[in-house]
């Protein structure tokens, strides 16, 4: 039947604006909807297309580029496109992982924005049948000395803490980056990892006409309506209080207790084999869950909108269908199993309402998503399910290399005057993230072998209901926006490389990555060029290092006042430790140990003609406000050999053998100077290092370098020589000073105080945010 309604005659808003534009659809997109339906859409149908075809849900600007990423591997069980990527970890255990952004909601309402970001990604993981066992949060803010930024930091961290701790999933790491480009548009990314017995793996699809769609969890309210289209798919005017306040109702509100019960109920339903498919409700709410499950299963679905439990009266149909109320899941169950499903949900005090029925697809045509007022009542909307989830227009948006790219590359920070006291600059670059992560429960489940703050976090591969295993997991998130701003291709490649090396430092074999691509406005050709270049760089590095990309998220329109953020691709890296029976050495020193630099970087001195590049370094960017130059090159093949070598070396000790590594740290942000200082302040042991020529060598962030502390340097050096890995003895660990030639001479206590005090000094006196 052809649903019609009174409102169809004049689809304009009160101000006379065409409705489709108010909902975020272009005129061309509206025409496509008409072509698909072969008639005019009504208000409800237009609203469904608007949310499902939003940038956030459809990836319409990025999809043509994402195809270039490598996604396959023998161990990949589920690649991109599902709720989460899944790899086979061996021993009958699979690992699910996903990363997402919750940038715009957090900009407007930091506590709830961040909290619901955590809630949303947990659902993506347990949708796959996996128990979420770890969360990581890469966070990006503006200048932390500004009150507005402090309000954002405080609120976001409190939101992650308040939700994550209560819902009972440990937050084991993340990143904290400050740069003025995020002042109006902070980034709040969240990664979640879950584990499951391999045979429990479920996919979010509906099947079996006659089966029921049961909505589990919270009632549906007006919170979060248009979240994906209003918030996530448009930029900010920037800083206008009234405008931000007006968008606040589009931010969802989280209830971690509801989510905790939902997790336990869903995992029990899956264990009891009572569901044939399950899907979370996230962005675009019920319309997304019903249309995606139907489309994936090649079926249709009737949705009785009147059966959806509501939080408030007076909600109209499109509000119910597009609401982003949190803590809801859609389970597909057989009619016979419904009573047992209801009984189990009652035990966990989880609401369960039959809101849909799976229907047969018409012969030779896609299944229909029909919205009804009562299963036997009038049809309010009728669209092909697949048209919503798959048929969004794909845009080949124009790309343009920035006109000033060459000029920026030529403006190298190498010409900046040398600092009179490099030690002072080292101190200025130290910051202990403990202030953030001590607010997160990072130990729940008794799996956390290496918590936040190191090169990568390490977990035992264990959870209730899993087969026993001696394996371990390593997890890291990495980004390098200052590099990506200079050269998005090289920057993205280096980010992947750093993630792999961070995993190696814990003795893990890097197995897969996920990405969260935070970029500016895709309608700016320079932004699309950045995105395209970053994807190519990521692709090159992943291919060279044998890493499949098993999932991702694209967050565009990160802009304010028309100014885009620096391109910020975030990489989540997942590694596997074959045998985890001893703690990895971590970022530490032993008294009297020898410091060795393992170095696979591309000629640090360029044949003696030029010093190593300082472009993109924290020293140049943060301390000297110099954001230009040509990045240090990276040799991906050499980097891969270094990753293999370091993994093997650390894995020996982690497996319980007598390892050669007593402490280890990759050289990344802040260069060798900061790496040495961090080793010293974290261990409480000083360092004496020589052979570093100048501030270029001290602060360059040339990739593919690792500092190792060992008491058996002879063995280590001969192993490195055998493996063809470049090395150099830097000096020794001991004493209570940090000394690097005549460049750095720091009292360990002073350095420790600077490192520890940086964040508390800024943030401790703030009025805390509680909820």
């Amino acid at each position, binding site marked *: 039947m052809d649903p019609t309604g009174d409102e169809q005659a004049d689809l304009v808003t009160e101000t006379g604006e065409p409705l489709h534009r108010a909902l975020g659809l272009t005129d061309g997109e509206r025409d496509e909807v008409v072509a698909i339906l072969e008639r005019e859409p009504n208000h409800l149908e237009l609203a469904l297309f608007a949310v499902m075809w939003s940038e956030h849900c459809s990836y319409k600007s990025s999809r043509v580029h994402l195809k270039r990423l490598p996604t396959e591997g023998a161990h990949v069980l589920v690649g991109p496109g599902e709720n989460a990527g899944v790899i086979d970890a061996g021993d009958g255990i699979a690992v699910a992982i996903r990363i997402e952004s919750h940038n715009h909601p957090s900009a407007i309402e930091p506590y709830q924005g961040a909290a619901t970001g955590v809630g949303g990604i947990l659902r993506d993981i347990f949708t796959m049948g996996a128990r979420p066992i770890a969360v990581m949060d890469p966070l990006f803010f503006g200048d932390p000395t500004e009150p507005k930024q402090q309000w954002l930091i405080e609120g976001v961290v*409190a939101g992650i*803490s*308040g939700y994550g*701790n*209560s*819902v*009972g999933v440990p937050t084991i790491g993340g990143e904290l980056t400050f740069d003025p480009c995020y002042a109006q548009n902070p980034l709040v990314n969240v990664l979640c990892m879950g584990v499951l017995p391999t045979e429990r793996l479920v996919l979010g699809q509906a099947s079996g006409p006659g089966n029921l769609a049961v909505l589990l969890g919270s009632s549906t309210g007006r919170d979060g309506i248009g979240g994906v289209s209003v918030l996530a798919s448009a930029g900010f005017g920037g800083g206008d209080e009234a405008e931000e306040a007006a968008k606040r109702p589009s931010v969802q509100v989280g*209830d*971690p*207790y*509801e989510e*905790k*019960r939902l997790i*336990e109920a869903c995992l029990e339903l899956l264990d009891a084999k009572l569901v044939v498919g399950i899907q979370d409700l996230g962005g675009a709410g019920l319309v997304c869950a019903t249309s995606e499950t139907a489309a994936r299963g090649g079926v249709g679905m009737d949705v009785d909108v009147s059966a959806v439990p509501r939080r408030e009266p007076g909600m109209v149909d499109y509000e119910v269908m597009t609401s982003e109320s949190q803590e809801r899941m859609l389970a597909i169950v057989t009619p016979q199993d419904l009573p047992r499903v209801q009984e189990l949900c009652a*035990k*966990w*005090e989880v609401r369960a309402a039959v809101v849909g029925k799976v229907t047969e697809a018409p012969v030779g045509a896609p299944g229909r998503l029909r919205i009804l007022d009562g299963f036997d009542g009038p049809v309010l909307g009728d669209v092909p399910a697949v048209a919503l989830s798959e048929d969004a227009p794909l845009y080949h948006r124009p790309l343009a290399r920035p006109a000033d790219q060459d000029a920026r590359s030529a403006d190298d920070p190498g010409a900046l005057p040398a600092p009179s006291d490099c030690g002072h600059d080292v101190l200025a670059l130290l910051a202990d993230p403990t202030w953030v*992560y*001590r*607010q*997160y*429960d*990072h*130990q*729940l*489940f*008794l799996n*956390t*072998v290496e918590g936040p703050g190191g090169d990568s976090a390490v977990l*035992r591969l264990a959870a*209730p209901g899993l087969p026993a295993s001696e394996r371990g997991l390593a997890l890291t998130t990495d980004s390098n926006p200052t590099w990506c701003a200079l050269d998005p291709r090289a920057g993205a490649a280096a980010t992947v490389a750093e993630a792999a090396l961070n995993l190696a430092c814990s003795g893990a074999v890097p197995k897969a990555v996920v990405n969260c691509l935070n970029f500016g406005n895709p309608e700016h050709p320079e932004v699309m060029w950045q995105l395209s270049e970053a994807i190519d760089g990521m692709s090159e590095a992943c291919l060279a290092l044998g890493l499949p990309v098993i999932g991702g998220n694209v967050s565009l329109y990160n802009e304010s006042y028309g100014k885009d953020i620096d391109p910020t691709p975030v990489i989540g890296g997942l590694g596997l430790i074959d045998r*985890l*029976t*001893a*703690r990895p050495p971590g970022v530490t020193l032993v008294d009297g140990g020898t410091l060795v630099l393992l170095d696979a970087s591309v000629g640090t001195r360029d044949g003696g003609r030029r010093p190593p590049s300082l472009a993109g370094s924290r020293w140049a960017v943060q301390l000297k406000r110099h954001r230009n130059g040509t990045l240090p090159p990276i040799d991906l093949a050499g980097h891969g050999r270094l990753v293999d070598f370091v993994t093997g070396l650390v894995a020996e000790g982690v497996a319980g053998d007598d390892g050669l590594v007593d402490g280890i740290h990759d050289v990344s942000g802040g260069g060798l100077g900061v790496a040495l200082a961090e080793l010293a302040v974290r261990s409480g042991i000083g360092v004496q290092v020589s052979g570093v020529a100048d501030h270029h060598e001290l602060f360059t962030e040339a990739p593919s370098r690792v500092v190792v502390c060992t008491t058996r340097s002879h063995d280590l050096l001969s192993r490195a020589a055998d493996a063809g890995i470049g090395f150099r003895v830097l000096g020794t660990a001991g004493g209570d000073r940090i000394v690097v030639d005549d460049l750095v001479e720091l009292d360990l206590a002073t350095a420790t105080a600077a490192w520890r005090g940086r964040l508390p000094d800024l943030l*401790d006196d703030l009025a*805390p945010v*509680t909820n």
Partner: protein
Amino acid sequence: MAPRIGVVLFPGTNCEHDAVQALGRMGADAELVWHGASSLGHYDALVLPGGFAHGDYLRPGAIARFSPVMEAVADYAAAGGPVVGICNGFQVLTEAGLLPGALQKNRGLRFLCTTVAVRVERADTALTDGVAVGTELSIPINHFEGNYTCDAATLAQLRDEGRVVLRYVDNPNGSVDDIAGVCNAGRNVVGLMPHPERASDPLLGSEDGIVLLAALLRTAGATAPVT
């Protein structure tokens, strides 16, 4: 025979598997007890683990005290059965009136997940039986409402009767008199904010919690089973 330990599970509890795992590693036969149970099976000790029972809504433990199982827990405690509340479990026991005092928000008003040093003050409670007084243990805390408080008379009574079981060496949360754990007059009900189960495996960085859990198992083995 291995002591049987009941680990009480409220909706919103999240440390139940950790408690079962840590006690199980030490040879106990630990199993979960659903909060809706109005009677208990045969247990040699009960543990109320950490988490956010009933979402900690209203305030931690305020709703959990009304869960059906709490009447059975009170009866079990009254009969002398060993009962240990860890973190949220401690909060529940104070709300249920099985332990004195209350846990308010931390000084500084932030959540704290970190490892602290605590000193054992008594060697004669269900959780510290036979542990030398003065023993310092390194054990994680993980709470927002861990700041122990009580009125002056109660504090005097706790001191006089030797019912302060554990004290922080360096008070992290503002607790009165550095109190990290207390017991009831019968010394069979103990509440503490630190998580001994999180310090029960060298792979995780500390085994100090085993000192306390082993004492609980000794108590459980020695106590006449309560039915």
